C-alpha cells in the first residue's frame, strides 16, 4: 500500500473513520473505492478544501441521491476547527472581520464596528442582516450567522441535543419572514417605477435564495460548534441523514417527503424503461416474411436468416385500489403518483379510493396534466366516507362491482 504510506497517518485515521461513517449512513463504499479515495487525495493539495471534498465525492459517492448524506458526514469529519467555534468562546470572537464592519451600518453610524458585534442590540443586528441580505454580501452574512448562533441558539457544552433544536431557536429569533417582507418592500420603494408582479416575483426569488443561503450558513455554524464540543463520532451519529431509499414513509417529515417526490420522478422513468424491456425481453415479434425473403437474396434465395418484426407485446390493464384514510394517506398519494407516472405502460388505468366507502376516481385523472391537482380533487371530492371514516377493508372487497351504488354505470372491473 504505497499510496497509503504516503498519506500521513493522522489523515489516514480520519479517513477510515470517515468511510466507516459513510457505510453506517448506508452508502455502499467498496474496498476499491476506498483505495481510490486514498490515492486521489495524494494528488490534491490538502489545503484546498473544496478540491479535497470533490476528490472524495468522485471516488466514494456513485449516486447523486446520496450526495446530501455524504455532504453531512464530510462537514462533520472535516469541519473547520479552532477556538472560535467552541461554544463557550462567544466573548472573544476574533473572526468578525474588522474590514467588513465599518461600512456595515451606514444608517446607524457603524455601531457594530470593532466591537465584534457584542455591542449590537438585537435591532441593530436585524438591521445589519437586512442590509447584508439586500446587497447579497456573503462575508457579512457569514459573520451575522456566527453572531446569531452565539447569541440566540443558547448552546450549552455537553448537552445532548441535536442541531435542529438550536437551529429552530436561532431562526425564530431572527424572524426571517418579516425580513423578507421588508426586503420586498424596500425593493418596491427603490424601483423607479412600481414593480410589476413579474418583477416582484423575480426579486422575491432572489431574496429567498439569499435567505436559504443564510439558513445553510447558520446550520453549518451550529454543526461546527457541536462537533467542536462533542467530538466527531458522537455528532456523526446524531446528524446522520437517511438516504432517500431508507426514509421511513410513515415518519417522514415534510422536507423528506419533498425529497421523495423528487426522487420518484426519475424512478418512474426507470421503472417504465425496465417494464418495457422486460416485456420485450426474449420475445421476437411475428415473422416478417417480406424482410426474410429480401435478405434471402444474399444467400441465393435460401431463407437462411429469418427476420422478425419488432415485438409489441400487449400492455396490461391495471386497477389501483387505494386506502386514503389519514393514517396511510401519504403512501396512497405515492402509489397513485407512481401509477400515473407510468400509465403509458398500461393500456388502461382505473383507480378507486376507499376509506369505508369506495369511489372511482379515474375521472379526476383524465385530461389532467398535473397530478397534484388531481390528487387534491380526489381528497376533496371523492365520496369515500360511508359510516364513520375509519378504514374498512371489507367494503372494497365486498363491493367487487366497485362503484355500483348508483355512482358509476361503467363496466365493473372484476
Amino acid at each position: 500500500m504505497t499510496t497509503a504510506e504516503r498519506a500521513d497517518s493522522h489523515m489516514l485515521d480520519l479517513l477510515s473513520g470517515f468511510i466507516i461513517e459513510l457505510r453506517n449512513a448506508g452508502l455502499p463504499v467498496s474496498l476499491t473505492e476506498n483505495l481510490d479515495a486514498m490515492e486521489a487525495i495524494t494528488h490534491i493539495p490538502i489545503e484546498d478544501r473544496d478540491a479535497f471534498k470533490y476528490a472524495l465525492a468522485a471516488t466514494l459517492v456513485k449516486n447523486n441521491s446520496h450526495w446530501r448524506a455524504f455532504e453531512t458526514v464530510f462537514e462533520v469529519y472535516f469541519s473547520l476547527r479552532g477556538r472560535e467555534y467552541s461554544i463557550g468562546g462567544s466573548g472573544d470572537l476574533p473572526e468578525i472581520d474588522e474590514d467588513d464592519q465599518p461600512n456595515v451600518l451606514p444608517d446607524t453610524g457603524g455601531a457594530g464596528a470593532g466591537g465584534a458585534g457584542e455591542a449590537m442590540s438585537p435591532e441593530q443586528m436585524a438591521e445589519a442582516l437586512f442590509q447584508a441580505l439586500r446587497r447579497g454580501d456573503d462575508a457579512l452574512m457569514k459573520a451575522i450567522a456566527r453572531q446569531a448562533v452565539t447569541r440566540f441558539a443558547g448552546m450549552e457544552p455537553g448537552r445532548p441535543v441535536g442541531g435542529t433544536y438550536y437551529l429552530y431557536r436561532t431562526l425564530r429569533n431572527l424572524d426571517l419572514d418579516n425580513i423578507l417582507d421588508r426586503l420586498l418592500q424596500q425593493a418596491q420603494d427603490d424601483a423607479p417605477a412600481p414593480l410589476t408582479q413579474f418583477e416582484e416575483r423575480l426579486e422575491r426569488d432572489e431574496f429567498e435564495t439569499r435567505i436559504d443561503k443564510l439558513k445553510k450558513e447558520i446550520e453549518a455554524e451550529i454543526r461546527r460548534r457541536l462537533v467542536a464540543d462533542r467530538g466527531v463520532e458522537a455528532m456523526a451519529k446524531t446528524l446522520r441523514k437517511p438516504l432517500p431509499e431508507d426514509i421511513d414513509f410513515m415518519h417522514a417529515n415534510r422536507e423528506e417527503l419533498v425529497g421523495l417526490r423528487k426522487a420518484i420522478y426519475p424512478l418512474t422513468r426507470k421503472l417504465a424503461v425496465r417494464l418495457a424491456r422486460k416485456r420485450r425481453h426474449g420475445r421476437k415479434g411475428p415473422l416478417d416474411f417480406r424482410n426474410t425473403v429480401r435478405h434471402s437474396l444474399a444467400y441465393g434465395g435460401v431463407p437462411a436468416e429469418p427476420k422478425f418484426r419488432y415485438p409489441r407485446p400487449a400492455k396490461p390493464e391495471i386497477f389501483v385500489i387505494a386506502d386514503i384514510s389519514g393514517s396511510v394517506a401519504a403512501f396512497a398519494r405515492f402509489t397513485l403518483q407512481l401509477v400515473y407516472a407510468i400509465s403509458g405502460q398500461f393500456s388502461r388505468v382505473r383507480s378507486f379510493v376507499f376509506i369505508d366507502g369506495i369511489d372511482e376516481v379515474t375521472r379526476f385523472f383524465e385530461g389532467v396534466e398535473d397530478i397534484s391537482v388531481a390528487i387534491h380533487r380526489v381528497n376533496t371530492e371523492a365520496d369515500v366516507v360511508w359510516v364513520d371514516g375509519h378504514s374498512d377493508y371489507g367494503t372494497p372487497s365486498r363491493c367487487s362491482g366497485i362503484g355500483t351504488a348508483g355512482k358509476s354505470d361503467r363496466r365493473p372491473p372484476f
Partner: protein
Amino acid sequence: MDYRFESPADVRTRLRSVDYLSDEAIAGVVFLADRLGKPILVEGPAGTGKTQLAKSVAEVIGARLIRLQCYEGLDESKALYEWNYKKQLLRIQAERNNESTWEDIETDIFSDEFLLTRPLLEAIRATEPVVLLIDEVDRVEIETEALLLEVLSDYQVSIPELGTMEARQVPMVFLTSNNTRELSEALKRRCLFLHIDYPEMDREKEIVLTKVPELTENLADQIARIVRSIRQLELKKAPSVSETLDWARTLLLLGVDSITEAEAIETLNILLKYQSDIARATRELQGDGGARKPGVPRTS
C-alpha cells in the same frame, strides 16, 4: 507518465479557453481522472453539457474524439471489433487451388488485415492521444455493460484469436448517462462519478454571455434569473442550459433589451416543451400561482 493537467485550476482555465465554463466539481474530477487514469461517469439531466464536456476536453488536450453512441441492442461487433467474414470467405476460396495447409489459412485469416475495429478497440489501439466518449451508456442492456468493463479497468481488449491488446497510452474516457436505469455496481466502481446539475445562477449567466456574446450583461442577468425562477417550479422537464441558450438567442433576434412579463410568456415555448409546463409557468410568472407563500403585502 506525463499528466495532461497541472491542477484543477489549470483544467478550469483551459476549458474556459474553449468556451466551456466548468465549476469546481467538474474541474476537480477531470483533473483526478487524468491523474488516476480512471474513466469518468458523467450523470445529470439532459442538456447540461455532459457530452460537450468530453468534446471540450478533447479539444483542450488536442486529442481525437472517438465516440461510441450506445443504444439498446448494441453488441460486441458494434462496440469492440468484428471479423470481416466476407473477406475471410473470399480468402479461403482464393486459397482453395493452392497447396497451402489449413494452419496457414487459419493464421492468415485471423490476422489484423481481417479485423474491423470498432470504437472501443480503436481507442485502445490509437497511437495518438484520444478521448473516448461512451455516450448514453444507460441505454445498453445490463448484460452488455460487461463488454465495457475490461476496457475501462485495464484498458485492454481480449480477442480470442489474437490475444490481448493493451492500450499504448491511457486514453481519457467519459461515459455519460441520463439515468434512465441504475448502472451496475461493477461499472460504477471502475469510474469516478460526476454529477452535472443545472448551473448556479451566476455560472449560467456567464455561460449565456460566453455563448451569445452579443447580449448585454443586463439581459443575460435577467435571463438567468427568470430561468432560475422557472426551475424552482415543479415541472415535467425543467429548462436545460441548451434551452436557456436558445432562449437567449431568440430574445436577441427579437431585439429585446429588457424582458417584460409579456415577452417572457410569449417566448416560454422555447424554454419549456410541455403544454402543461408552459401553462403552469405562465400562471406563476403572472403572479397568481397559488403555490407560493402568502402574506407579502402588495403595494401596487
